[in-house]
């Protein structure tokens, strides 16, 4: 069981959130047993014994001391819970100095990642272990929610605003990122991941990017890798059942009907244009929701994807 409370907390701060969870569970558990216990005990103990004949019942109508106590005690208890929840939250909201900054933009339906040094990625954030990371979130179309369950944090990504979120990952590993604000047909497919790397590995990767040394890879193979990495398959199927966007199987060379009634033959230029300017020619029957890959993909990468798509027959 991953990610159950107090298991798999991926940072010290997440552990504190779990401690609040445990505290509320213990207090809630106590009141659960008390109230349900009395409810069931009274219902059984004071049930009518003889059918048709009421037990003798006292005409008790209230008790001022009891009313006072059961206003006072819950008030104190909720104050304690409020205070503890707020303290831990306040720490969670105050970023530590020296954080690595990462810009993340939510769009229907993917996360675009930009590092201050110019690196970009889609649906994958890489960070070094043991150093605070500050996410600067925004959205290009509708509100999205950036949720890192293993770190017990989430923050909405809102068009026209920059919201922030920080974590300090302690352990290397891959952690899921989900979208939690409903954003349309691809909402549940907007999955990404946070990759926490050992500092050395991270430095190595940051210098060259994971595309380094792969320039002489055969284009279709490289394209396949990119298609998997860039979130294309969240919306496009390459076999089987249709997803949100057009199925990519057999697209190359086919006649594609367009929204404006015309049609176009899907040649290399059409595929390239659809990647960097998806709104230029809309396929009939599909929503115009695909974000552009103009800034996040280099020309060589686009060529690789076009070559890969030619192999999808």
């Amino acid at each position, binding site marked *: *069981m*991953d990610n*159950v409370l107090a298991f798999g907390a991926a940072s010290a701060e997440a552990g504190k*959130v779990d401690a*609040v*969870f445990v505290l*509320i569970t213990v207090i809630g558990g106590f*009141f*659960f047993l008390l*109230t349900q216990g009395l*409810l069931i005990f009274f*219902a059984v103990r*004071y*049930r*009518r014994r003889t059918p048709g004949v*009421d*037990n003798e*019942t*006292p*005409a*008790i*109508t*209230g*008790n001022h001391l009891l*009313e006072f106590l*059961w206003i006072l005690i*819950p008030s104190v208890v*909720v*104050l304690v*819970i*409020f205070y503890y*929840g*707020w303290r*831990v*939250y*306040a720490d*969670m909201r105050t970023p530590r100095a020296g954080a690595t900054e990462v810009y993340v933009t939510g769009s229907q339906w993917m996360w675009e990642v930009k590092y201050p040094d110019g690196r970009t990625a889609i649906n994958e954030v890489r960070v070094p272990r043991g150093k605070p990371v500050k996410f600067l979130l925004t959205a290009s*179309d*509708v*509100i999205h*929610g950036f*949720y890192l*369950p293993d770190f*017990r*944090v*989430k*923050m*909405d990504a809102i068009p*026209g*605003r920059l919201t922030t979120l920080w974590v300090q990952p302690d352990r290397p590993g891959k952690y899921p990122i*989900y979208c*939690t*604000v*409903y*954003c*349309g*047909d*691809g909402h*549940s497919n907007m999955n990404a991941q946070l990759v926490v790397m050992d500092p050395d590995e991270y430095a190595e990767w940051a210098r060259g990017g994971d595309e380094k040394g792969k320039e002489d890879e055969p284009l279709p193979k490289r394209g396949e890798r990119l298609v998997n990495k860039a979130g294309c398959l969240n919306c496009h199927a390459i076999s089987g059942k249709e997803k*949100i966007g057009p199925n990519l199987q057999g697209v190359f060379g086919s006649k594609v009907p367009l929204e404006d009634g015309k049609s176009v033959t899907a040649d290399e230029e059409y595929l390239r244009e659809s990647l960097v300017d998806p709104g230029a020619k809309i396929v009939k029957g599909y929503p115009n929701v695909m974000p552009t890959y103009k800034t996040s993909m280099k020309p060589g990468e686009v060529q690789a994807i076009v070559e890969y798509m030619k192999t999808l027959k």
Partner: protein
Amino acid sequence: MSAEAAVAGAGGGKGYLAERGWRSWAFTLDHKRIGVMYLCTTIAFFLLGGVFALLLRLELLSPQARYFSNHTYNVFFTLHGAMMIFLFIIPAIPSGLGNFFIPLHLGARDVAFPRLNLASFWIFAAGFLVILGSLVAPMDTGWTFYTPYSAKTKAAVTTLSLGVFLIGMSSILTGLNFIVTIHKMRAPGMTWHRMPLFLWSMYATSIIQVVATPVVGVTFLLLAAERVLGVGFFDPAKGGDPVLFQHFFWFYSHPVVYVMILPAMGIISEVIPVFSRKPIFGYKAIAYSSLAIAFLGFLVWAHHMFTSGMSPLANAIFSFMTFFVAVPTAVKVFNWIATLYKGSITFESPMLYSLTFIFLFIIGGLTGPFLGALATNVQLHDTYFVVAHFHYTMMGGTVMGFFAGLHYWFPKMTGRMLNEKVARVAWALVFLGFNVTFFTMFIVGVRGMPRRYAEYLPKFHTENVVSTIGSAIMAAGILVMVWNFVQGLRNGAKAGANPWRSLTLEWRAASPPETENFHEIPQVDDWPYGYGTRGTGKEGR
């Protein structure tokens, strides 16, 4: 019948159901008939909303889209939410049971403004027709209409929000009517502190309806202006703010959860003393806690928005206020449990559902602090934990209270008794199915599964299958209950005026009551909870 008829003073009068023909319903000014029309409509939407819920659960049997596309799934959860909230749970108890029983509880012949009451119903009917009309391009925004998504989607958002606008107007008029009725039409001798607690809860409910509902009406007009005229209230590109919509929306939609729960709490406060044969414990505490909830409920709306980028200070203030709604709610629960102490308890179906209400509402209530506390809210917000929490309060609470009320008042409304054995089978299935369906959602929520997901990761599969099995059990229970209602209407044993030996005034009228309820307006000289065989039941109030 003769002894009860004498009590009722109802010698030769005809029941309110005697007149036939559609005109006798469509143009009726009788609060009871209007109440019945509301009840039939809202129950129909409850069943329809339930069918959407079952389709959602069916799809979630598989982690990948199997029966429906993602879009269809999104439409289903939007319609499930919108119908359950706007067409069932908000109007069902206030406009349905409230219309029927407020005048009877008061010892009055009708509400203060019978024509306005009929107008409310027809505005409501216009509202649900418009909402059904929106099905030509069914909504896919979720029942929360969050912008900018709701401003951009091609679905019929404007139509649906117009429908909700009309429903809201009907809700305001009904609330206004009830406030005036409770102020002006109490029977001679019925002081405020001799009113049944159902009236106190309906009074608090009506205040919220009148004060909060206009805000949602205005919000939907702004949304319509954005969609139709292109005004950018919520569009950052035009200087607007999408989060502003959330503030407007929850300024109504949080208080309105108390419009949903308070009337049910009123029903529980009536049923528990009758079936315990004991006075209600802490009458004033229960009565005034309703008003406290109605007041505090206006100050907590932004606890739905702790991750929307509000400042930590604003979040802290809203979290603090939120915890104080818990106190008057807890006070009610303690008082109900104390009423059982040394009672003479019987377990007819109204009491079974009332005890179930308390049991499930405690779970719903105790899972609230996880969401009220900021640290854990950030983790659990928008996961299935929230879905579980509000179904425990809204379905485990309000709907169980509604079922308690339907079983309690069925003899009064129809003049016939229900089959208790069948009612218990239905109850057992609903209770079991409910917990299997929704308790599982707490677990999958803590494990991090976000809500409104048409597809999910395979690691959440087991919980989703269990939850779907639970929903099927619950559906079977509700079918048995509906069947029992139909059988009761057709073949139920004749009910006397007061089968439950209750002291509130509606039981002095005949079953079913005559058109103007009472031959003579009753004189009230005591509160309605003087049960108990020792003592007078007057001390310490």
